[in-house]
């Protein structure tokens, strides 16, 4: 039983980590939490559904095409919900993101309807790992997510584009002074964030089905993952996501299935009490 819980907890944790990573990328870039991140998951899933179930393309091709479309969505989102308000107060941008979240949700309902739908699995069937029976889709999610995380790491740390994105995230003004096109850099960050979250939606769809309201709960858990892992830290987002997934899984089995979300937030509060900057976050103190 414990192995079963470990695998399902890890899978869910990795997905929360993907969403959280997307939120952290945007936070690092523009300093604002994107409350429409859960809707990126949903829209990515629906794009995958369109290619896979309506146009009958293979699932991996559908995931790839959906991710390209999500890149466009990310850029459009940036231009409409963030860029016009970039000089306004932070709360204005947050409200704008919330509005975009509602628009995406209802837009999805008008486009694809309210009836939940599914897509093909990457690999069908189940596998036996020790005493645990695991769906191959869970293992696919873990595998593809790890590949994505490595890709993001290489992109950000080892590539020229990544350095530009990091420079813009650190100081937009200085970046513009040295000739970095800030709007392009921020656009790329939003696109990358939308892509990795959207792929998560396509991977989750065969297990948990797609509906226009699926983003909200995932977004809330991803936010908890960010706080636990440390605001602004990409590794923190991943570790935070894993912690959230495992608490949800083991807490549900051994403590209470009704209060899984409560357990997650209790862990969040405990982490904040003893390490307010999160596990990987940097403590920032003002000098007197």
């Amino acid at each position: 039983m414990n192995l079963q819980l470990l695998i399902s907890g890890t899978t869910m944790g990795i997905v929360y980590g993907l969403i959280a990573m997307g939120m952290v990328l945007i936070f690092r870039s523009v300093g604002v939490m994107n409350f429409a991140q859960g809707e990126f998951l949903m829209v990515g899933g629906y794009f995958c559904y369109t290619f896979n179930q309506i146009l009958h393309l293979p699932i991996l091709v559908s995931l790839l095409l959906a991710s390209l479309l999500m890149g466009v969505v990310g850029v459009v989102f940036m231009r409409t919900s963030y860029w016009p308000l970039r000089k306004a107060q932070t709360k204005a941008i947050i409200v704008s993101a919330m509005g975009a979240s509602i628009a995406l949700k209802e837009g999805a309902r008008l486009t694809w309807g309210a009836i939940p739908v599914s897509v093909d699995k990457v690999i069908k069937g189940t596998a036996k790992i020790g005493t645990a029976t695991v769906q191959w889709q869970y293992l696919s999610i873990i595998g593809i997510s790890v590949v994505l995380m490595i890709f993001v790491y290489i992109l950000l740390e080892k590539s020229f584009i990544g350095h530009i994105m990091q420079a813009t995230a650190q100081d937009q003004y200085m970046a513009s002074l040295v000739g970095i096109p800030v709007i392009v850099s921020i656009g790329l960050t939003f696109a990358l964030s939308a892509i990795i979250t959207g792929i998560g939606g396509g991977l989750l769809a065969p297990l948990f089905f797609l509906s226009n309201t699926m983003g909200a709960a995932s977004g809330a858990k991803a936010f908890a993952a960010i706080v636990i892992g440390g605001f602004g830290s990409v590794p923190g987002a991943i570790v935070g996501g894993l912690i959230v997934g495992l608490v949800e899984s083991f807490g549900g089995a051994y403590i209470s299935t009704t209060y899984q979300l409560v357990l997650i937030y209790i862990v969040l509060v405990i982490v904040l009490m003893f390490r307010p900057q999160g596990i990987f976050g940097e403590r920032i103190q003002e000098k007197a």
Partner: protein
Amino acid sequence: MKKVKRILATALSIAMLLSASACASVDAKSTSTSTSAAAATEPAASAADTTKTASASGPIKIGLTTVLTGDRSLEGEYASNAAKIVQDEVNSSGGVLGRNIEIVIEDALGTDVGAVNAYRKLAADKDIVAIVGSDSSNDNIAISSSVQEAKILTTGQGSSPKLMEIANSNPWLFQLRASDQTLCAALVKYAVEEKGLKTFAIVHDTETASADQARLFTEALATYGITPSVVVPFTSGTKDFSSHIAQIQNADVDGIFAACFHTEAAILLQQLRALDIELPVFGSNAFGDPVTIGLAGDASNNVYSVTAWVPNTTNPKGAAFSAKYTELYGDACAKSAAQIYDHISLICEAIKIAGTTDRQAVRDAMATIDNYQGAITTYDCTTNGDCGRGGLIVQVIDQVPTIVKELYSEKAK
């Protein structure tokens, strides 16, 4: 500047006085209206209050609150489609009292506050003769005091015993559905007496209707001296049931009773079968619904469900409606659609019997309807609660809900 301020202040004061006097005249009108409406609720109803009578010309308006946006928008999609079908059907066969009907839809938003606001908006329209409440016992219970206040015939789609209790004490609210009390007891009887199972787990959503159904399963099992080996609740929107299934596995039971909505039902079934848990599942109506079966696929096979409706019903009226729905919209006809069809048809029948669109008369006419054959079942509205007389126990075979037992019960008290 001072002069401008003075002029502005004077103008605002006059505007306030004018609006206050307008409100007073509306209040006086409302008071006199509600007074005469109150007088009209006496069993021997007097002449109709003309301010509450809909226009004598133009379409007869019937209100419908359903969930168009939010978590339960699935219901709204089916309901809106069904409303169009029944409206067209009634109007193309001459309408009601020589007039077309028009269904006016308001969004209940999937919350009880939304349901109340939507209901009040419809009830405030004096041209609306009757209202169909949304497909949620929670919502129907939330609007019940507004129904009493508005004094307009309202039909509730929920099935909870609590709603039945409220409907039986509210002359304006009719629960046009078999109560869960009847249906859950029938499913337990089937599992214990006909399937011979002895030990059970109950897994249920914590939202009100599902939690009520879980309680009813427990009470029905108690009549056989059986206590559930484990009860595993989960919150709406749960995706990963590993912890819940782990508890069920540990309990080592013969069967599982389950109560939840479509998406959770499908996910639960998929995850159970993926873990090679082939225990029979006896589920609430969502488990026999085409949406759940479509999502769960092969995992839905050998699942039993107690429900009022299946798309492949043997009821001729239901079969005709189901075929029409599928022809027009491509999807199998779900319960939410069939319910709207019956609710609106019953309201039209009440208007025909009343011979008028006066709200009191239509309400009184509804209470005389006994043995009305709808698309889903036969209706007895002589008391307000538990008006749907029939149900079905279905077994899903090759992803088709197959009727294994038809239920017809006396009204629950």
